[in-house]
């Protein structure tokens, strides 16, 4: 392996301490700065490096819904389990993060696998495709999940499967889109009217933007008059992003700034966008865990590739959603509450036995709070 640079360079202690100093100088004591980091990867870094206690008291990070596992409604898991029950000859492939997410029945893929279901963990959708090629007598379903970052890879393997004329490979698609979710949060009555938490700016998602570019965020900046800083994931990236937002708030600006210019352009990765739009089209509506139904917020496979769409090729039931009553994931995902406000947090809901989705993935806010021991 060639040595990866961009690791220590973006964690440099002196530069980090210097940025923290600049943030303290720039943040005006009389102003409260609430910034939402949309992306779970950012949430993870913020806790991993102990930023909440290093930032000034009046700079608060609100953790957004940008963890695809966290926002997936539990009934989609139940759907996959129903699919496996009905078609015992089928192998379901999915990412490791999905294995512990409980369905409404309380059962997750790990438990179901232990009972004999054919579920395989893959690191790349390509592995699922290879599995289908190697096992022509089996049907292989890849449970695809993720924001715009992972969608091109799914689109790519669907195209590959078409080129190879595979008859035993299918995709159960849960791909969702970032801009509609941000729009929904900005329009959510909990935020606009009840005003539990007013958000003054966004740390924009770095990897998503590498694909879609910064352009889609220009609408939010203008329409809702909120600054956006599209930011990388290293400690220096995030602090620089926060500093950009503080400056914009101070100057009453609301622009889209690109902190992550080593990976992100205004227009993004056009090749990826092209392949995604060739294979996918918008879903009229999709239910997000905690955020409810958001119109045109997810993707489905186009008619041309319908023979690879598990939802069209198999008959299985996706039951109605039925979340745990005490679970506050919804309010937490909107930034209206913190994990500490939830009665289940750390008591009956833990990373070993997650009730809500925010506890499942290491990118979820509850998991981050629990793992890194955030207390009141």
């Amino acid at each position, binding site marked *: *392996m060639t040595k990866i640079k961009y690791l220590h360079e973006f964690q440099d202690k002196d530069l*980090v301490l210097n940025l923290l100093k600049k943030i303290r100088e720039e943040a005006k004591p009389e102003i409260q700065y609430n910034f939402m980091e949309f992306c779970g990867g950012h949430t993870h870094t913020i806790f991993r490096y102990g930023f909440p206690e290093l930032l000034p008291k009046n700079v608060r990070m609100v953790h957004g819904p940008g963890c695809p596992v966290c926002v997936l409604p539990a009934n989609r898991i139940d759907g996959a389990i129903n699919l496996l029950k009905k078609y015992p000859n089928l192998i379901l492939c999915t990412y*490791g993060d999905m294995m512990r997410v409980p369905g409404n029945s309380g059962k997750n893929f790990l438990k179901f696998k232990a009972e004999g279901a054919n579920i395989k963990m*893959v*690191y*790349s959708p390509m592995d699922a495709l290879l599995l289908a090629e190697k096992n022509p007598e089996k049907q292989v379903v890849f449970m695809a999940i993720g924001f715009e970052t992972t969608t091109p890879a799914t689109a790519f393997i669907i195209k590959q499967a078409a080129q190879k004329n595979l008859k035993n490979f299918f995709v159960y698609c849960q791909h969702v889109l970032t801009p509609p979710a941000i729009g929904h949060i900005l329009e959510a009555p909990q935020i606009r009217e009840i005003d539990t938490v007013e958000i003054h700016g966004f740390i924009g998602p770095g990897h998503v933007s590498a694909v879609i570019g910064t352009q889609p965020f220009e609408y939010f900046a203008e329409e809702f008059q909120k600054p956006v800083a599209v930011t990388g994931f290293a400690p220096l990236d995030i602090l620089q992003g926060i500093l950009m937002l503080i400056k914009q708030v101070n100057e009453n600006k609301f622009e889209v700034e690109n902190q992550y210019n080593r990976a992100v352009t205004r227009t993004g990765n056009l090749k990826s966008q092209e392949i995604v739009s060739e294979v996918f089209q918008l879903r009229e509506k999709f239910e997000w865990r905690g955020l409810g139904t958001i119109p045109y917020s997810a993707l489905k496979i186009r008619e041309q590739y319908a023979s690879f769409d598990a939802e069209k090729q198999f008959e299985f039931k996706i039951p109605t959603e039925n979340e745990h009553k005490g679970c506050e994931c919804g309010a937490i995902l909107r930034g209206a509450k913190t994990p500490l406000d939830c009665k289940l947090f750390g008591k009956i809901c833990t990373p*070993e036995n997650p009730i809500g989705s925010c506890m499942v993935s290491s990118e979820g806010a509850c998991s981050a709070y629990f793992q890194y*021991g955030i207390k009141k």
Partner: protein
Amino acid sequence: MLDFKNGKINLSHGSGGRNMAKLIDELFLKSFDNELLNQRNDQALFTATSGKMVMSTDGHVVSPIFFPGGDIGSLSVHGTVNDVAVAGAKPLYLSAGFIIEEGYPLADLKKIVESMAAASRKAGVPIVTGDTKIVEKGKGDGVFITTTGIGVLLRDDLQISGNNAKVGDKILINGFIGDHGISILSKRENLGFESTIKSDSAALHKLIEKMVEAVPEINVMRDPTRGGVAATLNEICQLSNVGAILEEANLPIRIEVLAACELLGLDPLHSANEGKVITICPAEKAEILLTAMRSHPLGKDAKIIGEIIEDDDNHVQIRTEYGGTRLLPWPAEEQLPRIC
């Protein structure tokens, strides 16, 4: 003669008949070759040593069986030698139980057994008794090896135990963290990921002998295998009813391991080690212990990485380079099954 070039294990190799005798003679006895084993009894007969005895057992199911820096054979020797040694003991003898899947290539089995024999000779701890079982194809996965070790405490007055960490004690480690787990990961076929990282698999008893000689007041020694440094320190804190704080800047972690973890979303502190020992000793002895560790090749990169603090919640914390703190939790799940 067995066909070690193209032959495969079949059920008759475990049936008690002539084929099994051939396998034992031509492979196991020939490779492990020592006086006690050569008596060819179902048990090894030796005189008990005076002093406190230590015993430990460990099953090895690592996948892949051959990995950079070792294989299941050498690992099964190192793993058990280390489990005995971290009590502050000198390992004396090993036993080995093989479970082999029908159809396994004899050439590979020979490689494993020879590597095991070499590791045992190098460690000076002979394999004195053993057992072989063959299971039908599909009922195992190549080879599983269980080894048991017996040893004697280096000094009768040692008080080395997981429940013996004291507030103010220093925490030391003998070198780089996380290499074994990442080396295994890099060889898992479905990851499409390559690295130059080698497993740190090694027998630590000679290093430990030096450490105990220099500082007999060591309070805790454990090898951070599955679950890595994080699991081991959390275990110790719970057993001793204390907390621990690590200095991130002092943690010896290779840049390659950090990079791989960054890429795959893992924490090096959750990654397994097979040649590391976490040692906790009184603060005033820490420098002496560190010098003793660094004088041995397996301890040349040793570091003091943190200290034991009072904490009723028994948390392990890390002070980041920037001065913030975070918890180092128990690993929530097995990221990677069958790493040892």
